[in-house]
């Protein structure tokens, strides 16, 4: 069953077609990577799937709901209930501690639950830094707080736009480990990346060029690991 389906999706800015007739299906539990040169429409696509933008044409079915037809209020609700967003920049609220930053997402979702937030931080290996302010954390640690925040409401779809773009190798590996773990647990993950090593981890790679899908590569990772 497909969790996400894009049908003839276009996004037009003036004369520029940032997305041009995209058709794409993402089955539940898949780990998908999106690659492509800068300006090829990767972020535009993530914004549309992430309910932060609407396509000019076409429909986007997420969990059986056509989100291209929803009003901003229900888009906010869908984003809150079904999607976990991770950005290239770390976007933490800098006067709140790591723990509180995670709890903000709980606050707008349901109720802040300190224990649960703490468990989320444990999952990304930051239990010991819960009381630190973002300025007291390294870049990798900040991104892990962002991941903990994205995971706190058990989203069915995780959208990450260049999550490792600002990280060094060591931190990149930590983040990838978290993704692997999430994938094993059955989460659906869409990762935009420039980095072939990151893309390699995914089951499928969609390559965008000029707003169109240039090709889709299947990664038979299981076979490669065996070989």
């Amino acid at each position, binding site marked *: 069953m497909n969790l996400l389906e894009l049908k003839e999706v276009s996004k037009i800015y003036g004369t520029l077609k940032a997305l041009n007739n995209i058709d794409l299906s993402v089955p539940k539990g898949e780990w998908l990577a999106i690659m492509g040169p800068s300006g090829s429409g990767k972020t535009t696509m993530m914004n549309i799937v992430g309910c932060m*933008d609407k396509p000019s044409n076409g429909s986007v079915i997420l969990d059986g709901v056509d989100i291209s037809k929803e009003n901003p209020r229900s888009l*906010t609700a869908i984003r809150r209930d079904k999607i976990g967003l991770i950005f290239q920049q770390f976007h933490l609220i800098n006067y709140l501690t790591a723990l509180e930053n995670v709890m903000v997402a709980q606050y707008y979702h349901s109720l802040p639950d300190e224990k649960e937030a703490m468990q989320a931080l444990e999952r990304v290996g930051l239990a010991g830094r819960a009381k630190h302010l973002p300025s007291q954390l390294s870049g990798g640690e900040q991104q892990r707080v962002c991941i903990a925040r994205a995971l706190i409401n058990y989203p069915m779809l995780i959208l990450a736009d260049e999550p490792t773009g600002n990280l060094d190798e060591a931190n990149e590996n930590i983040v990838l480990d978290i993704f692997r773990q999430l994938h094993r647990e059955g989460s659906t993950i869409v990762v935009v990346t420039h980095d072939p090593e990151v893309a390699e981890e995914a089951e499928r790679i969609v390559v965008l060029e000029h707003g169109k899908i240039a090709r889709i590569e299947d990664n038979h990772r299981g076979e490669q690991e065996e070989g």
Partner: protein
Amino acid sequence: MFFRMMNGALLRQKGKMLMIAFTIALGASLATAMLNVMLDVGDKINQELKTYGANINVVPKEASLLDDLYGVDERSGVSNKYLQESELGRIKTIFWAFNIVDFAPFLDTKVTLNGAVENVELAGTWFSHHLDLPTGESLDTGMINMKNWWDVSGDWITDAEEDSAMVGSLLAGRHQIAPGDVISVAGKNGQKTLTVKGVFNTGSDEDELIYVPLKVAQDLADRAGLVSRVEVSALTTPDNELSRRAAQNPKSLSIKEWETWYCTAYVSAISYQIQEVITDSVAKPIRQVAESEGAILEKTQLLMVLITILSLIGAALGISNLVTASVMERSREIGLLKAVGANDFPISMLVLTEILLMGLLGGVIGYFAGLGFAQIIGHSVFGSAIDIKPMVIPLVAVLVFLVTLAGSIPSIRFLLSLRPAEVLHGR
């Protein structure tokens, strides 16, 4: 969580937030000062205008008739009807007794001065007369209060100084009389030697008069216990259509209108009430003064309303700039909150609560500063303290609330239009 976030935002943008509070404080202080002065200014201006003299003249009915029919000045000695001195205390017992600021009786008579042939006018009056009222209260009233703008060389006299007199400057000039001189006056009922304690200059025809204590004039004219007229200075409400109709003919009013009129401090209503308590009297408003009082009062209040409105608009504009800047500075944070699923309403509430908190802080500071301003205005403009009216507190609170809300509108609009996709991907 809400408070934790608000706290954080307030602390981080301390400078901006304090500027917002300061701007609100400025507006609130002006509004407080103006409202307090405005609510108090009716009394203040009336008291100020009172110095220009009495606004009600009480004369005997017959004198009034003669005056109306033949245009005869009752001071000329033609009229021989009088009011009873013993009834004067009743003026302070009428419905609007509290509005009667001062009054003084006069007994006008003609005397010869220092044996000269021509007659001069002499008036007996109260200078500062102590009255015990039937109500048990007491008051001191008379010329010294009512004519406090007089330019007196020498001294005012007191009612007890029955061998003393005050002489108008024109008369004194013609007869070369200076303070300290002794004059002799002769009336119908004998002759008296008086020491001139003061020479006064009023710029009016009173400068031709000799003023003595009432008792002295009554003896000279053989009119014991009588007075020929009373001047009353009363605080009045500006005239309107109702009071003008009543002044023409009180009987033309319906019972309800009549009650409204009677229970309002119109100069005509106060005059009417004086007539009710003084036997055979006619009380007439000295009209021009009474009307200009109302007009000046209304204009001054209008001016203050305008200043208040302008200062509040200024404050609203000021905070709208500051708040918008503060929200723009936080657009990334607000975009993030939207991205993690916050609706417009809770985010707006967060920002509004912050600003209203600053409004509260600024409003309280501004209120107390405004009380100070009001006193400065009171002392520099009216030469007296301004009464603090408690009703200004809710008024200022509502105004600050509205101004703060109005000032937040542009920032809330910005906040609502902010799209997380645009602020979260560093383009």
